[in-house]
């Protein structure tokens, strides 16, 4: 049911509007929702370009994150000694503050797409690598022995048991990565860009246009939710058996 959350949001917006007007809060601190809406109408024509840039960075970066994350998982699972060598490095990579890394990447790779894609990939590959490794390691030993007993070689074991076993974990990781991808792209743009929602925010901020900043915040949230929903949909299509209702069936 969508009714309760919608009602709550309407209520909060109304409280915000009334509060800001009652206490005469200046617009450069907190504009009321009606002003945010007006700001949205103002920038409506320029927003799609920024959204397109940010989404391109997020999706391309996520693509790299998938390739690197899955390759890492496959490598670490097939050569157990590598797991001990690589895992600390993997965790370390997540302790690098992106806000510090972003300017460096801009220095190294310029103002174009590359540094943003790298930041998204750096943020995104970790959940995918960890979840996929876990999924591969937790494949049912008996199932592997079953197909081996049928005469399956390494490749057939991989295709018929390991990959399908790891798919749910992989998608769980991807869902986390997809949620952070847009945010990571925005951070990348913050440092220096010629287009994108990050740039839009930087400009709005330096002009004290809090209403426009809030528009960008809402757009970023919406785009993140869309990415999450898209991954969820793909997961559903890839693993239809996980969404079968067994209730009411004769068992």
């Amino acid at each position, binding site marked *: 049911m969508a009714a309760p959350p919608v009602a709550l949001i309407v209520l909060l917006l109304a409280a915000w509007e009334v509060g800001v007007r009652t206490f005469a809060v200046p617009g450069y601190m907190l504009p009321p929702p009606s002003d945010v809406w007006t700001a949205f109408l103002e920038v409506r024509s320029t927003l799609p370009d920024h959204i397109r840039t940010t989404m391109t960075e997020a999706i391309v970066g996520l693509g790299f994150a998938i390739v690197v994350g899955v390759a890492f998982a496959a490598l670490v699972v097939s050569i157990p000694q590598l797991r001990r060598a690589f895992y600390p490095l993997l965790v370390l990579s997540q302790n690098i503050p992106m806000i510090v890394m972003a300017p460096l990447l801009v220095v190294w790779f310029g103002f174009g797409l590359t540094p943003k894609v790298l930041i998204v990939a750096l943020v995104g590959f970790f959940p995918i690598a960890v979840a996929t490794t876990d999924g591969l390691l937790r494949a*049912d030993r*008996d*199932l592997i*022995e*079953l*197909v*081996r*007993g*049928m*005469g*399956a070689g390494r490749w*057939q074991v991989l295709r*018929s*048991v390991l990959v*399908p076993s790891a*798919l749910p974990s992989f998608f769980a990781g991807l869902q986390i990565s997809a949620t952070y991808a847009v945010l990571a792209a925005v951070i990348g743009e913050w440092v220096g860009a010629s287009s994108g929602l990050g740039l839009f925010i930087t400009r709005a901020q330096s002009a004290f246009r809090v209403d426009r900043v809030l528009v960008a915040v809402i757009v970023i949230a919406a785009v993140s939710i869309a990415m999450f929903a898209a991954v969820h949909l793909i997961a559903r299509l890839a*693993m239809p*058996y996980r969404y*079968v209702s*067994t209730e009411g*069936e*004769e*068992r």
Partner: protein
Amino acid sequence: MTAGISVQHLTHRFAGAPPVLALDGLSLEVPQGRFAAVVGPSGSGKSTLLRVLAGLLRPSEGRAAVDGHEVIGEPGGVSFMPQRDLLLPWRRVLANATLGAEIAGVPRAEAHERAEVLMERFGLSGFEQAWPSQLSGGMRQRLALLRTFLMPRPVLLLDEPFGALDAITRREMHAWLQEVWRRDGRTVMLVTHDIEEALVLADVVYILSRRPGRLVATIDVPLPRPRTARDTTTPAFVELKARVLDALEGVTPPEEPRAVPSGQRSAP
């Protein structure tokens, strides 16, 4: 070497502290096209024997051959059905049925065609596109058996295929397996600890001792087929069952004396 299953002086020790001797010098021959049952208490190495024949476990000593080919360390030579039904949850019923055939290199179209024919006989028609999670326990087990039958291998190894089923379903499966096997005609080795199941289904029953597994008796079952649950009450059947029980008696140590409350134990 002869056709069928041939096992010679099979000994297997599982590493550990202390090492466990699972099989001790086991030898047996199952001629081609016969249905053999292996009966023994838990820990008699029944499953170990099947895993050796399936090429999944290298025994410490001994030889094992199927139709004259050595099978030790060579998986894929026989059709093996493990204890759990082990259906792949991400494959539909029909695709699960053809898994073994696909891995064995049977073209998909041909495997599907053969599966469709058997679906009816295995009581699964109409469920081809269902997911395993939507099947009942008996249906899952029949699907696992169908998958085993669909593999183009000369020998079928069944490890307690009906162990998880209730008595009524199990009886149905016995009638039905006999019928399926009669048309199929391949060599079968069935592991079970249900004596009636062994006598209803098999031509010959091998009895193994408690750990370490040794062959203690070979009992032929010359009863006419098809055999039903009714036949378990005939004098001939009861006589055979008594022989199996006697053979098992010899290998099963008497129950350990329970702690008896003091004062109740009568003086010897």
